[in-house]
């Protein structure tokens, strides 16, 4: 048993942290999210070439630096601290995850594109009717000669405006909510018939509604014809990585609140001297610490059996979801009126925390999933 980081892992953290400290302060981020592009393609290039972090979580055989989920955890935590917009989650964690686990024939060249910073990926999995049931798919993929034709509508595809490629789930067979027949495709976003309607999200990111209107895709776009297990695995890994991002966000919410309470004076004294606020900030601290613990636990267990992995990730997401709400709301509360302003960073961390709460499943969703794994499966 060991909770230490290797030298390589610590180096990855230091590299990312110092880059973000220099180039991703809050005012810079404000400019990025309000720019036309909504992200910094040159930063992405720097991640690939200057920092070399896009390959950190790939094995050396796949052209990476030999790391894995722990590297994703470290990078996502640092990204959380700076509220980074650039699509690491979609491209490296999710896109990379599908390439690692699927046995996809084109994996090597896709990974080369990811590591080199030329391929960016968004994951089009959600549908308007499906909430958090990944196999609930109205989007269809029909065999057409050697290739496929896609039709349907994907909801809130985060990072799609920045993506060169989409990974899409679409029904290759079976009924709308069947476990079988969940096809997974990697497609070029510029294919004819891919219609995207882009918009900002409430936390400063960008997303798209993606419509597939008779999109012909080649045979080699198919990653898996019936890949629900694969989808679950990749989403679990992504959820663990989002837990790490949450840890970064939560740390900043807590630190920011402590700093503010120490300097804000009311009734002739710093409000940090009031015991009712001290205990609140202690409870926030406990939530943060437990989130760290759960993220470690889930990240380590993400490589275990499907049942262990799913249980660990759902347990983590329950605690992370609760922490995001508790720490976020109380950070605003303790900042008082200033917490309500767009001017301070604290509100922006709160907004990210709020979206993380529902990302890849709400607290209730993951509680139910945990129960079915812990109780119903055992019974």
């Amino acid at each position, binding site marked *: *048993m*060991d*909770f*230490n*980081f290797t030298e390589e892992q610590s180096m990855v953290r230091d590299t990312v942290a110092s880059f973000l400290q220099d180039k991703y302060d809050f005012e810079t981020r404000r400019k990025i999210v309000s720019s036309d592009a909504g992200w910094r393609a040159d930063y992405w290039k720097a991640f690939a070439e200057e920092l070399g972090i896009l390959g950190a979580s790939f094995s050396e055989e796949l052209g990476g630096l030999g790391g894995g989920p*722990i590297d994703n955890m470290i990078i996502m935590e640092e990204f959380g601290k700076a509220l980074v917009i650039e699509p690491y989650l979609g491209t490296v964690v999710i896109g990379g995850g599908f390439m690692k686990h699927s046995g996809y024939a084109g994996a090597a060249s896709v990974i080369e594109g990811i590591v080199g910073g030329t391929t960016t990926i968004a994951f089009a999995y959600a549908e308007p009717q499906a909430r958090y049931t990944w196999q609930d798919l109205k989007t269809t993929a029909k065999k057409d000669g050697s290739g496929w034709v896609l039709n349907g509508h994907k909801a809130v595809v985060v990072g799609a405006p920045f993506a060169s490629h989409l990974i899409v789930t679409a029904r290759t067979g079976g009924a709308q909510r069947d476990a079988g027949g969940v096809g997974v495709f990697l497609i070029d976003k510029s294919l004819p018939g891919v219609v995207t309607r882009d918009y900002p999200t409430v936390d400063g990111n960008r997303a798209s509604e993606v419509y597939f209107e008779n999109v012909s895709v080649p045979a080699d776009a198919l990653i898996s014809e019936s890949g629900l297990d694969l989808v679950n695995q990749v989403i679990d890994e992504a959820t663990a990585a989002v837990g790490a991002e949450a840890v970064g966000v939560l740390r900043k919410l807590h630190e920011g609140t*402590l700093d503010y*309470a*120490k300097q804000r004076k009311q009734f002739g004294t710093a409000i*940090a*001297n009031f*015991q009712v606020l*001290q*205990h609140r*900030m*202690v*409870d926030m*601290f*406990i939530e943060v*610490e*437990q989130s*760290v*613990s*759960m993220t*470690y*636990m889930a*990240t*380590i*267990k993400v490589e275990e059996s499907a049942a262990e992995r799913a249980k660990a990730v759902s*347990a983590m997401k*329950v*605690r992370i979801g609760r922490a995001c709400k508790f720490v976020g709301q109380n950070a605003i509360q303790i900042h008082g009126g200033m917490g309500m302003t767009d001017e301070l960073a604290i509100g922006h961390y709160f907004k990210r925390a709020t979206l993380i709460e529902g990302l890849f499943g709400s607290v209730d969703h993951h*509680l139910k999933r*945990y*129960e079915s794994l*812990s*109780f119903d499966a055992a*019974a």
Partner: protein
Amino acid sequence: MNLDFSPEDLAFRDEVRAFIAENYPAGLREKQEEGEEMAKEDFLSWHRTLAKKGWVAPAWPEKYGGPGWTSVQRYIWSEETARADCVPILPFGINMVGPVIYTFGTPEQKERFLPPTLSGDIWWSQGYSEPGAGSDLASLKTKAERFTGDDGKEYYLVNGQKTWTTLAQHGDWIFCLVRTDPNAKIQEGISFLLIDMKSPGVTVRPIITLGGEHEVNEVWLENVKVPVENRIYEENKGWTCAKFLLAHERSGIAGVARSKRGIERIRQIASVELSDDGDALIKDPMFKRKVAELEIDLTALEYTELRTLAGEAAGKGPGPESSVLKIKGTEIQQRITELVLEAAGHYGAPYFRGFPKDGDNAHPIGPDFAHRAAPTYFNVRKTSIYGGSNEIQRNIIAKMVLGL
């Protein structure tokens, strides 16, 4: 980062399991599982068994009689003893005064007190709290005045009252915080004294608690003569020992392994007891949800404790972060007893104190587990009060960790 046990650790776990299977009596196991009150001999027999094996004080340095285990081995030990419903080793000697003595004591004091503490020949009591000094421990009033005895030796004359003294009815010795300088600042005039409870002037009176148990006591000290050589560390520096002891008391207070066993027991109980729908209680969505949340929160506590242990292994002593373990650990212990009582339904009501357990097997009064459900629920409310109330733990974190 990884969670794997090494082959050596796995072999150690097998050794521990085999030892417990061979040496831990089934009668004790049953009493412990049902949460029954333990007699003095119940505590002592298991203590002696472990002392003989050299395993009674897992955290002690080897030169004082510890087994020299790694932190992982200690973790395995607490897991395995909880899994087997072993009677807990009382903390007063092994976790509290023992470490104070080997850290602050003289060679003579170590020689005199450590071996009988290990063997169980001294049953220690803890003389900290007073009627007027609970969470505000430093306001204690028990005074110790120095004088020269007729034999020409130096003594303290101790007068005062200690309270909430756990199992002092069995106590041989009591370690006390006493005020040796009434004029010093509140935390600076305190000394740490070891007092033989057979000394004239020591009186133990029972306090009966909500569950009907005689677990705690008042200890009255009236003109008790205590040799100066029974003082640990310097005069008026007892607060240093007190703080050290409290930090040690908090480590291990998370009780993760015992709570795991507690949840396992709830699941067993709720698979037999029925819900309103006539199905197993564990299938009731509301009850199941509470158990699931408990499991998840316990997982969070477990990994927080493991991170703390890893920090300790890397040379960081039990710090103020252990207050987090105390707060969350005790909350979980309390939620477990709530769920057991809830599962008991009607049979939470009958009161069995002094009632023959197997009087009439043909006409039982509810399931066995229910007999102690309410008294245990009442009893375990103490956990968020003792060892520095959970509010005091929040003060500690606010001050020591958050710098408030």
